[in-house]
């Protein structure tokens, strides 16, 4: 087939248009058809459906009983003490819990991941240390919840943490039974599981930094701390943002570990918004209300999604 056309991902056909070009569209349809159909039918359509559902009330069989406009949203933010309670200080509720997670889980995972990445590079057993930290990434949040429920057990004979505490003479603490500590206990358990991701990404990025620049700085008399703060850290800002995005998305979708370790308890102290959605929809039969919670989750994720897209686009331009 002689031609001057250059089909491909970047080229534009020059010269004669081939019949092959039109045939390409049919072949493309064949290739993307199944995936697009599945996505349209099982993701996009339900997504719109859920938004519509959020404006209604349902019965126990999840059938719509009546339309209520924005009432679900209004109740959610003003009248639902388990979701958002601004009348106490500090504020409480599932939404506030997610905020605690956003602040603590993200920063601690990042900080620990970075710390371990920076330290482990200087020892000969680096790959072993990294493997140990990374392993929890492979297991389910369910398993993480059980492992840490064991660590947090109030009986010092069982719970490793309370064993250490009573060895120092203090009283055992009910880590997941007390409303004031339960969220922090959960957060740390999940940090344990997620630090490996931060560590792997940041470690790879660290190693990608040019040796010469660092050597030059060293010969110029810069201290290790200077090198870290002025050369390595700025160059890590992209990987750090990548890890941060992944962690934030985790926070919004948080469910398994709460469900297994505390069931939202004690009371409602450890509930998070994904748990609220599940509870309202499948335990209380209020699918419309649950849909409103789901929409709130989506709205929280949209800024992250836009950030992701923008980053993807700019990388295409640069890379």
């Amino acid at each position, binding site marked *: 087939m002689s031609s001057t056309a250059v089909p491909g991902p970047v080229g534009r056909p020059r010269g004669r248009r081939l019949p092959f070009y039109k045939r*390409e569209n049919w072949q493309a349809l064949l290739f*993307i058809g*199944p*995936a697009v159909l599945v996505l349209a039918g099982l993701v996009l359509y339900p997504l719109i459906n*859920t938004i519509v559902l959020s404006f209604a009330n349902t019965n126990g069989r999840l059938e719509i009983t009546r339309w209520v406009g924005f009432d679900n949203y209004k109740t959610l933010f003003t009248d639902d003490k388990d979701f958002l309670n601004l009348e106490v200080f500090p504020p409480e509720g599932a939404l506030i819990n997610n905020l605690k997670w956003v602040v603590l889980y993200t920063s601690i995972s990042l900080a620990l991941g970075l710390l371990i990445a920076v330290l482990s590079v200087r020892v000969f057993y680096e790959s072993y240390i990294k493997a140990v930290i990374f392993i929890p990434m492979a297991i389910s949040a369910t398993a993480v919840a*059980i492992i840490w429920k064991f660590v947090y057990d109030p009986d010092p004979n069982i719970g490793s943490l309370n064993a250490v505490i009573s060895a120092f003479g203090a009283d055992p603490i009910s880590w997941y039974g007390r409303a004031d500590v339960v969220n922090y206990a959960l957060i740390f358990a999940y940090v344990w599981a997620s630090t490996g991701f931060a560590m792997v990404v940041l470690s790879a990025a660290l190693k990608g930094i040019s040796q010469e620049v660092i050597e030059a700085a060293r010969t110029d008399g810069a201290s290790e701390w200077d090198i870290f703060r002025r050369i390595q850290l700025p160059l890590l800002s992209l990987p750090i943002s990548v890890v941060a995005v992944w962690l934030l998305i985790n926070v919004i979708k948080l469910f398994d570990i709460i469900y297994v370790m505390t069931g939202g308890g004690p009371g409602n102290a450890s509930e998070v918004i994904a748990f609220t959605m599940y509870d309202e929809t*499948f335990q209380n039969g209020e699918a419309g209300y649950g849909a409103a919670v789901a929409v709130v989750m989506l709205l929280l994720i949209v800024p992250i*999604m836009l950030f992701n*897209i923008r980053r993807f686009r700019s990388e295409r331009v640069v890379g």
Partner: protein
Amino acid sequence: MATAEVSVERPAATTGEKAVRMISRTPIHVGLLLIAVIWLVPTVGLAVTSFRPRDEIQSSSWWSSLTDFNFTLHNYDLVLTNAKMGTAFVSSLMITIPSTLLPLTLAAMAAYAFSWIRFPFRDTIFLLIVALMVVPIQMALVPLLQRFRDFGLADWYWGIWLAHTAFGLPLGIFLLRNFFITLPRDLIEAAKVDGASHARIFLKVVLPLSVPALASFAIFQFLWVWNDLLMALIFVQNSDLWPMTIRINQLQSTYGIEWHLLSAGAFLLMIVPLAVFFALQRYFVQGLLSGSVK
């Protein structure tokens, strides 16, 4: 994306230098050791407990048993049979394998088109799919469940297979497309000049060259589905078909906290992911890195 094994500083040259470096590094060694202990103790504690007889668990600490050496497999026996973890294991397999192969196939096909076929709106559609990656499952649960019920798909595994496929596709398409476009243009051009159809190019040229990327996504998806709880809770209504993640949670509510059962159950749950991880670590990490960094 290769990770260079470059050390961040000049390696110690003489033995003297090595000794000095190791000593001055003591705080680092101590710090890392402490961190390693914190990371290992939770899992090890539970592992040891799973081999201990029930009464001993209540009366003595797990680390004291390391010297007593009174271990048993009884807990595992109980949990596999009485607590139905054996059937749950099979269920987990039944759910996970199709939920991995299906999205892999559909994503590979779509990714190929997004990489090597020119068609109108290609980049827009791709961007839309990338956007779908972060949509929370909660946004689709109720409508999906209702449709599945209407068509009788919630009785067996059909529903959860479809759900996992749908939500695994955006990431799969994203990862695989990013890999496919790195393949040498000339190879594909040559095939086209020879008159090969896209189907032929896909099957004979692209797929064989893409095994690492396909493996990365497959492993990632496999672990994701195996470890999933929420989708199983909702789409697997028949209790005979419950996977391990649900079963082990049942262990909690019916028996209170019977650690001899829960610990053994937890480890059965973890065996497969850990095995997959250890055997195929490289692919898993590669998948994570390529999905997040690029």
